[in-house]
């Protein structure tokens, strides 16, 4: 059984069809890149998988359980325990320092554990910057902080929306390397991107256009 299965998922915003009958099955431990031009429905797909939005049609199965009809508190529960999110705009809390930003995720999940949060920062190379506020960090550092935050609760699925969209080449490499590390640990990684370079790291590439699935292929020349 696939870890995550989308079965004819549609999402309609008023009169706009953002997703139109998309079916994908994601196995545990897979690394998938979702590609497509702007407005193709990639972000909508990511939001649905990330439990931040709900489909208007079709089913979303997580471990065989249909979560497309789950709402409110329960959905929050699923998001909190199984999914780690990484955003293009980082979305850090400005008045909390790096360490505290990681601890916020712990706090909502279960318990806060400073040592563990520190270890997560160390892993992304930010141990020395733990007491800095986001505004004092560079873009690359902010994104690494986001990754540390996404990792902290050991989610099964890492969901990254254009994680390198705001970064330069060298920072992009660091971030991709961190994603590889997470993948090696056995996590399922889903990256939404329009950069072929980023997509090259994935094992499987899915292409959307106008809300429809137009391509689903194995990446034969995967960069490690």
């Amino acid at each position, binding site marked *: 059984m696939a870890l995550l299965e989308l079965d004819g998922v549609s999402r309609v915003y008023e009169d706009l069809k953002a997703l139109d009958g998309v079916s994908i099955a994601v196995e545990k431990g897979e690394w998938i890149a979702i590609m497509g031009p702007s407005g193709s429905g990639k972000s909508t797909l990511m939001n649905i998988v990330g439990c931040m939005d709900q489909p208007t049609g079709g089913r979303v199965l997580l471990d065989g359980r249909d979560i497309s009809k789950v709402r409110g508190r329960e959905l929050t529960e699923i998001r909190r325990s199984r999914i780690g999110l990484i955003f293009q*705009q*980082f979305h850090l809390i*400005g008045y909390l320092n790096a360490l505290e930003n990681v601890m916020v995720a712990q706090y909502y999940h279960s318990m806060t554990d400073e040592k563990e949060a520190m270890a997560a920062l160390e892993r992304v190379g930010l141990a020395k910057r733990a007491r800095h506020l986001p*505004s004092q960090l560079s*873009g690359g550092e902010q994104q690494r902080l986001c990754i540390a935050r996404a990792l902290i609760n050991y989610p099964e699925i890492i969901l990254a929306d254009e994680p390198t969209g*705001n970064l330069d080449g060298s920072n992009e490499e660091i971030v991709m390397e961190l994603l590889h590390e997470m993948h090696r640990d056995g996590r399922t990684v889903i990256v939404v991107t329009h950069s072929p370079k980023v997509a090259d790291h994935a094992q499987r590439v899915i292409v959307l256009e106008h809300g429809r699935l137009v391509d689903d292929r194995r990446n034969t020349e995967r960069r490690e």
Partner: protein
Amino acid sequence: MLFRMVKKSILNQKERMLIIALTVALGVSLITALLDVMLDIGDRMNRELKVYGANILVTPRGATLLKSWYRIGDEGEDGGNEEIFAASDAKGPQEPASTDERSASGGPAGGDGSKDRADPGMYLKESELGRIKTIFWAFNIVDFAPYLKSRVASEDGTPLTFVGTWFRHRLVLPTMEEVDTGMVSLKSWWQLEGAWPEAGDQVALGRALAGRLGLAPGSALTLDGRRFAVSGVFEAGGPEDGWIYGELDALQELKGLEDALDSVEISALTTPDNELSRRAAEDPSSLSVKEMETWYCTAYASSICYQLEEVLSGAMARPVRQVAAAEGAILEKTKLLMVLVTVLTAASSALGISNLVTAGVIERSAEIALMKAIGAHGRQVAIPVIASILVSALAGTAVGYGLGVWFASVIGKTVFNAVIEPQLAVIPAVLALVALICLTGSIGAIRMLLSLQPAQVLHGGRQ
């Protein structure tokens, strides 16, 4: 382009602009209401203070002193004045008279008319009373009542004090206007059982006298051989409790004193005394022409007295200092209090609005930095921002003014049972204040933002 930018910026910041408009509306309504109340408070309180009774007393110029001598001389035989103290005062009736009268100086002045019947100069003329409402400050005369006091004999020959007055009287003025006036509204603290006399053959008795004579509303008594019905018994808390009150005409007829009065009590809205009025009261001829004009055209108790003396022949008008001075002190305090409360409230409302405006500008820091980055001058950046704030503030002011006028009328109605007229002067004052607040609030913030480097503001993560 400017118009478009302003429109867009208002629509874009819809919520913020709405909140600015709302806060301005609240602040303006508060300021408007308080200003309207403040500008009217003197007049309102002045009217409230009328419950203390007359603040001007008019007596015949020639008679005042002579009569008071007779009154003092009479006291040995006139037990009527001292009822309230006599009961327990071991000293006897003659001495405390002056003090008990002092404590109730609102009572009719002048003494026993019967002694001076022969001399018409001892009296004021009833037929001239209408002239009171023709003086410069006629509008400020709230109420007045004439008095004639005389000694009458009861059936068994006991001398009693009879005061003739107007209770509720409709007076037709030379201008054909009609005025309702009389003693009843001047003596708000008197407690009446029964009714005030309405006809010449009715009288009201002071409680002490009624008790002594064993009379109650409904009974009758004979005075100077004429029968009167007791319509009511009153309690004044002063020497009047030992007197009989009846219609003025009835007493004039009884005593053959046609048209005669020995005092008039007047309740007038006055301006608290100042240096000028005190000097004028001393000697009006010491003033320069200009000072005289100012004094004459200000509603000081002394200038009203002067004008009364001009129209009433042989009259001497004096302010009753006990009422006039205290009134002045209380009015000044109340006004000052309202002014301070209004100013402080306006200041804190202003601070609140300017605080919000500043926050609204700071919220747009990124936009302002961007405009500067793409090459706009300080003024080009500032004008659309300020204009959009001013437009919302103006909308708020319009709503707030209407609301404020309504608040003022509610306050007027609930507190004073009177309408508080909106003052036109408040509108420009409020508009100027709002403009000033918005400009200082926004210009300061924009200056601050413009002094920053655009890159500093645009760098992400700045909260």
